[in-house]
């Protein structure tokens, strides 16, 4: 379980996040809804350990991960991150991208997991291709497989379904739901589209101007309240 407590992050005079608190339950799903500039990506980066909070604390599984001046390294937090733009590494093939996080494993085991993941995500025929040789939808799947390869306890996704149309969306949706269910990871995702919030399930929280506006535990999804 991830617990975010009174977390704040400032950039100069602007407060990107100003006292955010919520929980992501074990094997649960939480969606964070908020328009551009509301601090969603910053929040994800804080939880992933890519930035340090100016105030507050982030714990996961009872272990303190982030506090002002004290941050556990990103690769030791048991988290997976799928950035908004897939961000595949252009100098590595699809297979190498996915294998990157399996470095510590014995070769046979790593290969086995790779084959399994690629079969599951339908990426096997693309294994030797480079990122500039695959489509946007395929890149999303690779990014997902890459993040899930080391079997993290928590998965963080930034705008997972944005800019995808109909069929691709549904396919990716099903894939995410399936993989997350199989690996029993907790999922935290952010989006700016109200209709997407909740499609992956779980609680919906609203983030606006650095604060969580809608209530925390138990707040219903559906119509977002508007601030005019």
């Amino acid at each position, binding site marked *: 379980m991830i617990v975010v407590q009174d977390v704040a992050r400032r950039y100069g005079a602007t407060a990107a996040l100003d006292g955010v608190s919520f929980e992501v339950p074990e094997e649960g799903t939480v969606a964070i809804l908020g328009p551009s500039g509301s601090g969603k990506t910053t929040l994800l980066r804080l939880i992933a350990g*890519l*930035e340090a909070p100016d105030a507050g604390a982030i714990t996961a599984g009872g272990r303190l991960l982030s506090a002002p001046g004290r941050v556990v*390294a990103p690769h030791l937090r048991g988290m997976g991150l*799928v950035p908004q733009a897939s*961000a595949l*590494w252009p100098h590595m093939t699809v297979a190498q991208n996915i294998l990157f996080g399996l470095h510590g494993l014995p070769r046979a085991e790593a290969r086995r997991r790779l084959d399994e993941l690629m079969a599951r995500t339908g990426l096997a025929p693309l294994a030797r291709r480079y990122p500039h040789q695959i489509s946007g939808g395929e890149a999303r799947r690779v990014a997902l497989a890459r993040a899930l390869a080391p079997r*993290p306890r928590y998965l963080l996704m930034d705008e997972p379904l944005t800019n995808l149309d109909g069929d691709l969306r549904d396919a990716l949706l099903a894939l995410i739901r399936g993989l997350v269910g199989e690996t029993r990871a907790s999922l935290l995702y952010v989006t700016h589209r109200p*209709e997407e919030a909740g499609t992956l399930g779980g609680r919906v929280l609203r983030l606006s101007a650095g604060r969580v506006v809608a209530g925390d535990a138990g707040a219903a999804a559906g*119509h977002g309240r508007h601030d*005019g």
Partner: protein
Amino acid sequence: MSWRVGWGAAARGVLAALALALVLSPLAALVAQAAAAVLGGAGGWASLAVPTGRRATLLAQSASLALAVALAGMALGVLAGVALWRLPPRQRALARWAVWVAAFVPPYVHALAWSAAADRLQRSLVSIGFPRLPMRGWGLAWWVQVMALAPLAVGLALAGLQSLDRDAIDAARPLRPDTAVLLRVALPMAAPLVAAGGALLFLLTLTDYAVPSLFQVGVYAMELLTEFSAHHEPARALLLALPLALLAALVVAVGQRMLPLLPQRPGAAGEAWGLPPRWPPWLVGLQTAAGALLMAQLAVPLVALVALAVAEPALADTLRSAGGEIAYSLGVAAAAALVALPVALALGPMLARGMAGRGGGWLWLLAAFPVAVPAPLVGVGLIALWNRPGLEALYDSSAMPVLAAVARFAPLAVAVVAAQWRRVDPAFLDVARVLQARPWQAGLQVALPLLAPGCLAGMGIVFVLSLGELGATLLVAPPGRSTLTLRIYNYLHYGASGDVAGLCLVVLALALLVGAGTMAVLAAWGRLLPDSSRLLPDSSRVLPDGSRVLPDGSRVLPDGSHVSPDRGGGTP
């Protein structure tokens, strides 16, 4: 509309041809002379072009020195770049700017300063009983060359590291420790620019004779000079220069293959790392050493220059009398940079586009040749071309030193603009072409601003190099006119070290001013242009008040703030 499109393409073609002519004409004149001599005269001239025996050894020695300097420069560049990365943004910008300015100090100053420092070190070592070591040879030549050229490598490595996509680093850090992220993700992605630095160092070392001759290292460039001095026949010298030029072209050809690897998306605004990376002690140690070396690189010549300058009693007079040359140097360098701009704009995108196809490689070879041809030969080619009846208006004017600088350095600006063009999302231009009311609007209002950083960088490079140009200017400067560099080198022969140091400091100050100005303009330009993500063709509409409506109904106001949709009820 098709005839309009035809005109546009024809105009671009003509411009490109003119630009190419401007850059390559002196070389062409030289080649014509050489061809006439070889065809019409005694044989045996062609043998000059193929190095055998002693000359082959010299060529190999030159190449290995150049390679060693390039490798060391790249290593230093990466380490120093990573070290500078840790600085907060403002200090980092300052460091980057200082590094580029330091690139200007003439190699001879580095050679003198380090030679004196090495001698002092040796004396103190000898006084405590160490054996005396000879102050010559490969080691010293390599060291001084690396120190002289280090800023270029560091600047380019830093640019490469700065251009990294933050999301790519973000995706890697949760998976493996930061050192692995650096070695497996960040450095490979920064490799194109780092390699560009290496290629530049290779080229500049290959064609240099000043530093190796100071330490008695035999290089091919010296052989070239001896030949030209003994026979003063440009055709012979050109043929002799051919292997050098081919080697240079080879390096450029290999380097340009890496250009497609440049990230298509410009790096996301803001720091690539966010939370500072954690390095193991050995890496921190290496970075510290690199940082110290970099500071020594700047400090040693500065201290040497200032020490020499203040010891000179007549310095103020010298500086005053050099006022005319200062203005003239500035004028010629600025003019060269200005002329290089349309050349770079005409040829850069062509080069970038042509890279994909077969023709690209040849275009790059053409771009590489002028860089490798020795400066005096360029001067001779210009004289052959322009010293004709009826052209006095041009030949007797200051256009000649400008043309010399353009012929030698515009190819570098072309390369920079070509690299910049690769990073422009073609979608921008497509949308603009569809929407434009007049034929040249897309080019002027969309392509040009997007190319601006590359243009400015290219112009800056041409400016700085023109300021220090010597060999060709000497041959074509109109009588009665002299540049600062000519005066400095004239004084060097006389040995007025104090005056030389003072004038070098003036040159340094000029480079500083130009560097600061360029950086300031670049920063202002960045503010003029909105964040690139908002320019993506996402079918947004622009309202009369300047705000934009996003597809989800929310609005982005002109000051950048975001307003949620003001309609009740969410849309499913």
